[in-house]
């Protein structure tokens, strides 16, 4: 991926924004368990950052996805994972399907204000009984008059206690689990929505996460994104951006933490020398830095493929898998070097240790990524059996 002057300028703007407008408040937001999404997103909307690869007709910049990746990477300079995640939900997890398949009317009403930063958005797919196994979700929407009437519940919904609308995946008919689902734009102030429960999480604490109950919630049928029954497919496509974005936003945070740890171990004396002078320590840091650079190379390669319009689903899954693995490995090793200091609650290392753990779980767990990669490699047993049967 070639970084132009414009990519670099975008990175500089976002990094500066993160350092001046977000990082000074991270400790406070982490404590409160919520960030002022409307205020922060409005500022970002004014800088033209919330619709980088979205169509210009709705206030976006219409740029290719490499700019979105640079944006994600720059957000990684935030000293917590929760706020970049909340921002990423707005730009790359809840809105790609609407931008791609939504009607003009729906995009004017919901996409344009999300890009301007006037509305905060959630993606509502997971349920208590359906996380990585998306197809088994139980929430339903039945048609009545001109409306969909939604019943069920959604779990682990980022920005969920303060969002204005959610891109929600629901069952709109009986039948095959991959062909009975639809994505619907659900205004969060609709009657019958209860989102009072803010979940208490291990990490990403500055980002609010809701449990949402839906009891006879009426939404006009024109809020359907694209075609009925295509929701599962749309969501699988939307997951690609989510995974690439998630991996990209991990890189610079890890690099910063490695640098902080180099400084700390250089200063810290133990047994008559600096910790850093132990070969075990500096070799390990060299190893971790190599891992992070390798992750970056993979993210850039995947971005190139995606921008060129080629199928990047295997590479995007690899990015997500590798980001989770590398994130856990790096933060665990660094925390070890910080020792007792690292075990304290309020510092960048322990926060990253807790926050990073989510990468291997959210947006499809590591095991789902392995499944996708295996399938695309043609080594998933069921597929092999199926092909053997066909051949015979």
């Amino acid at each position: 991926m070639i970084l132009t002057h414009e990519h670099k300028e975008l990175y500089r703007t976002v990094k500066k924004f993160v350092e001046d407008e977000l990082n000074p408040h991270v400790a406070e937001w982490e404590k409160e368990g919520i960030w002022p999404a409307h205020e922060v997103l409005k500022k970002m909307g004014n800088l033209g950052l919330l619709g980088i690869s979205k169509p210009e007709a709705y206030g976006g910049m219409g740029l290719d996805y490499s700019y979105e990746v640079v944006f994600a990477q720059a957000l990684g300079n935030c000293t917590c994972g929760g706020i970049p995640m909340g921002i990423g939900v707005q730009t790359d997890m809840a809105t790609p399907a609407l931008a791609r398949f939504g009607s003009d009317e729906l995009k004017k009403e919901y996409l344009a204000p999300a890009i301007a930063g006037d509305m905060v958005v959630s993606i509502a797919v997971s349920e208590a009984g359906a996380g990585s196994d998306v197809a088994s979700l139980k929430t339903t929407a039945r048609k009545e008059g001109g409306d969909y009437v939604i019943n069920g519940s959604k779990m682990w919904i980022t920005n969920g206690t303060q969002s204005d609308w959610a891109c929600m995946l629901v069952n709109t008919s009986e039948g095959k689990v991959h062909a009975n689902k639809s994505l619907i734009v659900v205004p969060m102030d609709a009657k019958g929505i209860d989102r009072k429960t803010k979940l208490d999480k291990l990490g990403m604490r500055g980002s609010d996460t809701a449990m949402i109950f839906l009891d006879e919630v009426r939404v006009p049928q024109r809020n359907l994104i694209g075609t009925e029954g295509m929701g599962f497919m749309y969501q699988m496509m939307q997951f690609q951006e989510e995974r690439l974005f998630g991996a990209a936003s991990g890189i610079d945070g890890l690099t910063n933490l490695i640098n902080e740890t180099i400084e700390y171990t250089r200063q810290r004396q133990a047994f008559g020398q600096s910790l850093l002078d132990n070969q075990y320590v500096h070799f390990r840091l060299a190893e971790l830095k190599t891992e992070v650079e390798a992750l970056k190379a993979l993210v850039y390669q995947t971005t190139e493929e995606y921008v060129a319009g080629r199928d990047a689903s295997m590479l995007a899954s690899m990015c997500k898998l590798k980001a989770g693995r590398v994130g856990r490995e790096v933060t665990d090793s660094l925390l070890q070097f910080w020792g007792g200091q690292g075990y304290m609650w309020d510092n960048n290392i322990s926060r990253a240790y807790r926050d990073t753990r989510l990468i291997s779980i959210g947006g499809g767990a590591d095991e789902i990524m392995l499944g996708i990669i295996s399938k695309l490699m043609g080594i998933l047993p069921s597929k092999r059996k199926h092909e053997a049967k066909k051949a015979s």
Partner: protein
Amino acid sequence: MKVLVSVKRVVDYNVRIQIKPDGSGVVTDGVKHSMNPFDEIAMEEAVRLKEKGKVTEIIAVTLGGAKGEETLRTALAFGADRAIHVKEEGEIQPLTAARALAAIFKKEGAQILFTGKQAIDDDANQTAQMTAALLDLPQATFASKVELDGTKAQVTREIDAGLETLEVDLPAVISADLRLNEPRYLKLPDIMKAKKKTIEAVSFADLGVEAAASLKTIKTTPPPTRSKGVMVKTVDELVSALKAKGLV
């Protein structure tokens, strides 16, 4: 009112400077560069004056090699209307820069030359003053506040004794100090729009400027590293140690 803003491409302020092994200068190859922070402040001030309707056109100028174009693109994203690139490779001394800026200032018929009080690479702090001298114009350096009033500018500057306010007739040269303003975040739409704005390339020959060679860099060395200190137990011990070194 037309204003000229001169901007310099320098090694980024976050970079840890390294000296070349032969002592001929600092390492610049493969090192991150950005616009001199004081020039950024000058640029921001010009844009604010334009937003207030006091300035009608902003022309950004840089001197230096091909990569200077990036610095001009940044200036254009800030809000400069067009840019002039004095494209010359190699070292450019303050007097040379002043000659070139003076030539452009005259040619454009500008009313103000805005620039940073100094560039963070060689900290010379000479270009603004020399340009004013060459043009025989008033100068107001180290500005921490600028107000334009028709044919005059009121400039507040930080001096050792406090604040001093000067009134200068326009045209004039104004150099920006750190506290003049806080440069804005560049908006992504402006970054992209800057790509389409015009950059005119000129040479010293085009401007009729002769490169000065009044300065010669003999050697570049890193600042001395701090030597290890000595712990003293009492005030008396401290005093006698200082006396022994002839410091008190």
